[in-house]
């Protein structure tokens, strides 16, 4: 019995990690292609990230003389590993995640912090002044986006405990009981506002434009990663793709956990292909979330200054998220039904 669970965890973990790396890189390629098309360019082929990783693997790995070597190497591994672990907790296409239990949504937020912290530690240990500035900026960004993100998650969990109850801090439980089905008009608007808040948090979480102050190429020479090269850089590169995929999957699980197969069953019989269609539909949802929260924002905006990042998250987005929370609370008291239902 224990052996079976161990086998399942190890094999499943390895499979999900490979799957996350593969799709993380594919989505990275699609992202680059779309940005190029939006700038009237041809853009690189979609398999370009794979070529980049192979190239980086073949390159020399330079370690700076003054770096703390074991931390310098370890932080690359920790960053990739912690990004991959997130996927073990998130239900993919409505399938029960490999590891789950009460409170795992809080754990997911912490693992996101660990992978960002690994980059910070790597930056500090590499002894470059650019990396030190980048690491400090990354910490400030982290401190500013965690608060609105926490508000969003607390709001969802609180509403779920009011409406349905059960293990409200479990992602799988949230994904099985989509809140959209049980709220009234005010709650619906509140959820839309929370969705907006988490979509704005996403580029900060993933260090993408306009919140990529920590990795600003032109200001501080790629910041955190300035000294990294070869295999270590490849690991950070993959980890970035995996984090993007994990964050989009988290939003999918929180806000759009619906599957398409129950809808299609009315028209055609899918049989065993139901899981395949669900899976493809899941990838489509993840793609749309990455498109709206990363790609379009990246192509359309310039980089903010670090003070502007803090103001945006601490004041604007936190207020917006709190307003969404208040709307969800009013929804319980006023209970206005949705106009298009009954």
């Amino acid at each position, binding site marked *: 019995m224990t052996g079976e669970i161990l086998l399942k965890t190890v094999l499943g973990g390895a499979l999900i990690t490979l799957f996350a790396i593969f799709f993380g890189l594919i989505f990275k390629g699609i992202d*680059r292609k779309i940005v190029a098309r939006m*700038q009237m360019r*041809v853009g690189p082929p979609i398999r370009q990230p794979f070529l980049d990783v192979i190239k980086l693997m*073949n*390159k020399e790995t330079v370690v700076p003389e003054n770096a703390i070597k074991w931390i310098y190497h370890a932080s690359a591994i920790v960053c990739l590993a912690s990004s991959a672990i997130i996927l073990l907790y998130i239900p993919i296409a409505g399938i029960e995640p490999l590891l789950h239990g009460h409170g795992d949504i809080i754990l997911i937020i912490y693992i996101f912090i660990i992978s960002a912290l690994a980059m910070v530690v790597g930056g500090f240990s590499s002894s470059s002044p650019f990396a030190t500035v980048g690491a400090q900026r990354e910490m400030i960004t982290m401190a500013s986006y965690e608060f609105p993100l926490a508000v969003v998650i607390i709001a969802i969990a609180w509403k779920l405990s009011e409406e349905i109850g059960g293990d409200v801090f479990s992602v799988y439980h949230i994904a099985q009981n989509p809140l959209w089905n049980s709220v009234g008009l005010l709650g619906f608007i509140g959820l839309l506002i929370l969705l907006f808040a988490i979509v704005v948090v996403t580029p900060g979480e993933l260090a993408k434009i306009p919140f990529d102050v920590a990795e600003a*190429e032109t200001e501080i020479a790629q910041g955190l*990663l300035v*000294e990294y090269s070869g295999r270590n850089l490849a690991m950070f590169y993959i980890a970035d793709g995996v984090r993007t995929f994990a964050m989009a999957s988290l939003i999918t699980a929180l806000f759009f956990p619906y599957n398409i197969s129950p809808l299609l069953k009315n028209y055609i019989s899918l049989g065993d292909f139901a899981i395949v269609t669900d899976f493809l539909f899941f990838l489509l949802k993840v793609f749309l979330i990455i498109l709206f929260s990363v790609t379009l924002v990246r192509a359309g905006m310039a980089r903010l200054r670090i003070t502007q990042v803090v103001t945006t998250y601490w004041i604007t987005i936190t207020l917006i998220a709190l307003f969404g929370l208040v709307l969800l609370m009013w929804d319980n008291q006023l209970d206005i039904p949705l106009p298009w239902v009954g």
Partner: protein
Amino acid sequence: MNSGSCNGCDIEIIAALTPRYDAERFGIKLVGSPRHADVIAFTGPVTDDMADKVKRIYEQTPDPKVILVVGACGISGGVFHESYHLSGPIEKILPEAKCIYVPGCPPRPEAIIYGVVKAWEFLEGVEKK
């Protein structure tokens, strides 16, 4: 890297990155740190002051690497040929480096992209070995 050039070549390098020429369609990307680079583009005839920096940038880049010498200055000194303050051209400072030369004063962006693609083919050959 600008090693004392007149900025003409630098502007043409920027032109090669614009949507019209779009170097990224070959997967060519500008990076912020020599540690991330495969190809270093040098412009200019390498003045006495810059010679040391050219060496350092070259050494900071991880192997395998190629130098892309953009413009006539890097080949022979160009219009600055036999000037009193030159320690270049680049092959005198980095005799062991693999150089790809893009002639012209300044070269056209097409020529620069062609040079980068040549460098990239060379690097792929190194990887296979």
